[in-house]
């Protein structure tokens, strides 16, 4: 049964009136495919822009079952609507962890494959797809196809990073990573400017996890002021006595729900400035070392459920690009200057150095180079700022992450190549229209 409702993704922008079906079984899905002009699978709506939007969507949240777990090999098979948070609850106590995880655990396995998500270990381990051995896909005819690295390989690689445009992923098998405990040894290091932070990234290449928080309101010689965080799964002897008592502890924190949409003015430039300043000055010495639970390290925002509401009713966008490593400095300089000039402060700005990409996963977003993700509240000025930023990314031959986009130039997004007409999204139609 379908219901008519207004759907939007994490940025609450754009919104769309759509028919939403719940995935029930193959027979019913066939019916949906026959009845609707175009269809799109939708996971937990944790992409930001218009990727998981279509006039008819099939929610995979009903596909939430584990199917098998080999605890000696660490291979897991589950349905595509299983959330990363559910996986952690199951596997962490048994000494395993997600091989790659984005900055929220509230995404589905299907969404992780369709966007081929990356994490803080991209430079070491690549995208999520590196660990996926098999998937089951319902294609336009309603048939279920098993795809892997040896079977139906074309469809397998087309689906990785294919943003739901090849069909509905219903099941997947992937490899987990072994851990000795739930804790991460973290070093946080201050960087005064762009040169410093880039040098820190290069110097931290051997660390499993690296990411930087960047203050994008700085101007002149302070441009690029930031904090690098690098981490490793903690060794047993690094744990405190208390931590050792419960080495595979799950969530240390209680989630807080943000109850309503904050009024818009809360996030004006001033408050962003204050936030940035606080964050930067919180740490006095240049380097701080500590052992923390994986939860605040990987998912700092997840304890504030529905934090996206702080941007108010009109919503926000996330702007994430990557630019080739060689031109990193000039490009970041240009972009940060443009943002600082616009006074459109970003509440969150995350910088990371991606490693080499897997050429087989040709639809995946990451290429070797610097990626920066920024939040902007939706307002009139944004329609001027985005094209300005796009022009810079284009000039340096970068690209934009489809899982975050809603407004960017199609030429920055047309790296995704999928041959199909039945599965489509608002985003894909927007891109195709602009690039004949």
């Amino acid at each position, binding site marked *: 049964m379908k219901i008519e409702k207004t759907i939007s993704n994490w940025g609450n922008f754009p919104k769309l009136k759509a028919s939403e079906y719940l995935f029930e079984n193959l027979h019913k899905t066939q019916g949906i495919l026959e009845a609707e002009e175009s269809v799109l699978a939708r996971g937990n709506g944790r992409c930001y822009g218009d990727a998981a939007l279509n006039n008819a969507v099939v929610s995979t949240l009903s596909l939430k079952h584990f*199917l098998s777990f080999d605890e000696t090999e660490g291979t897991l098979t589950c349905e595509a609507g299983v959330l990363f948070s559910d996986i952690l609850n199951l596997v962490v106590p048994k000494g395993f962890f997600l091989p790659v995880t984005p900055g929220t655990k509230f995404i589905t396995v299907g969404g992780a494959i369709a966007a081929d998500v990356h994490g803080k270990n991209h430079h070491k381990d690549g995208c999520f797809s590196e660990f996926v051995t098999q998937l089951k896909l319902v294609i336009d005819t309603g048939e279920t196809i098993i795809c892997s690295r040896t079977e139906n390989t074309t469809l397998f690689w087309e689906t990785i990073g294919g943003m739901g445009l090849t069909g509905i992923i219903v099941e997947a098998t992937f490899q987990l990573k072994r851990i000795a405990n739930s804790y991460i040894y973290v070093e946080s290091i201050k960087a005064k400017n762009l040169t410093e932070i880039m040098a820190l990234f290069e110097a931290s290449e051997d660390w499993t996890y690296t990411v930087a928080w960047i203050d994008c309101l700085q101007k002149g010689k302070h441009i690029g002021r930031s904090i690098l965080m690098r981490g490793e799964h903690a060794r047993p002897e690094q744990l405190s006595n208390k931590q050792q008592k419960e080495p595979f502890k799950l969530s240390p924190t209680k989630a807080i729900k943000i109850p309503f949409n904050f009024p818009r003015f809360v996030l004006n430039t001033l408050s962003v400035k204050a936030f940035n300043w606080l964050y930067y000055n919180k740490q006095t010495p240049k380097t701080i070392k500590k052992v923390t639970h994986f939860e605040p390290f990987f998912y700092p925002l997840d304890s504030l459920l529905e934090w996206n509401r702080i941007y108010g009713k009109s919503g926000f966008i996330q702007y994430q690009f990557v630019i080739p490593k060689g031109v990193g400095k000039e490009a970041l300089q240009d972009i940060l200057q443009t943002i600082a000039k616009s006074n459109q402060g970003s509440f969150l700005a995350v910088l990371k150095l991606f490693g080499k990409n897997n050429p087989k996963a040709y639809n995946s977003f990451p290429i070797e180079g610097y990626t920066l993700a920024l939040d902007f509240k939706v307002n009139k000025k944004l329609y001027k700022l985005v094209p300005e930023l796009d022009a810079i990314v284009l000039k340096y031959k970068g690209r934009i992450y489809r899982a975050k986009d809603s407004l960017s130039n199609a030429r920055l997004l047309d790296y995704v190549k999928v041959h199909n007409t039945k599965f489509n999204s608002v985003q894909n139609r927007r891109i195709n229209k602009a690039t004949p």
Partner: protein
Amino acid sequence: MIILGANSEIAREFTELMLQKQSFVTVYLLSSNAEQLVTFKKHLEVKYKTEVKIIPFDLMGQIKLDFSAMEYNLVFSAAGYLGDTEAGVIAKTEDMSRIMAINYSGLVHFLNAVANDLLEKENGTIICISSVAGERGRQSNFIYGSAKAGITAYLSGLRNFLYKKNIHVMTVKPGFMDTKMTRGMDLPGPLTINPKKAAHLIYSGYKKKKNTIYISGIWRLIMFVIRNIPEIIFKKLSL
């Protein structure tokens, strides 16, 4: 533990919650759509390493199960059928007999068989979901409501009957729940609870050995008001 209506979200959430709280030798999933339970069975096996048996079972048919051969001391029923909620319901005999069998007569046969077996086993708990709809007949769903009223009365009698035999019966009266039964209906948000929460409330009622629980508690008050509206006014309302 025996779960009837295992395709209901509430039944599934409750089953998982029970498995998190205590261990069971075998989980029996009774269902009129057994083929839809295959993934849920695997899920339980992976997550809880418990034995799970699927038993095809239809409340519209005869009860041919041998409960004495099954190992359990907890029975949970989420079986129910709302049927057509449009005004024409009294004309639809087929739908009507489904409503009466699944919510009442078939369920009574099932619970009687279970109760007889529990008497042999000499202890146990029966939890059965009825509905607030059984507290007063309303034009929008009174066939369903009357069947629920019947099962509520049956459960209170059964509780009384089994009290001295160390067998406890808990009646669960939900108000609005957000499940496949109500998918697409426009339910009032603040009064509607999700299956996970419902399962938690049922679990805490079970732990406290409650006789009747409303989910959520606010419905006790709402139904108190609804029961006390004089019939002369009630009959004119369009609830």
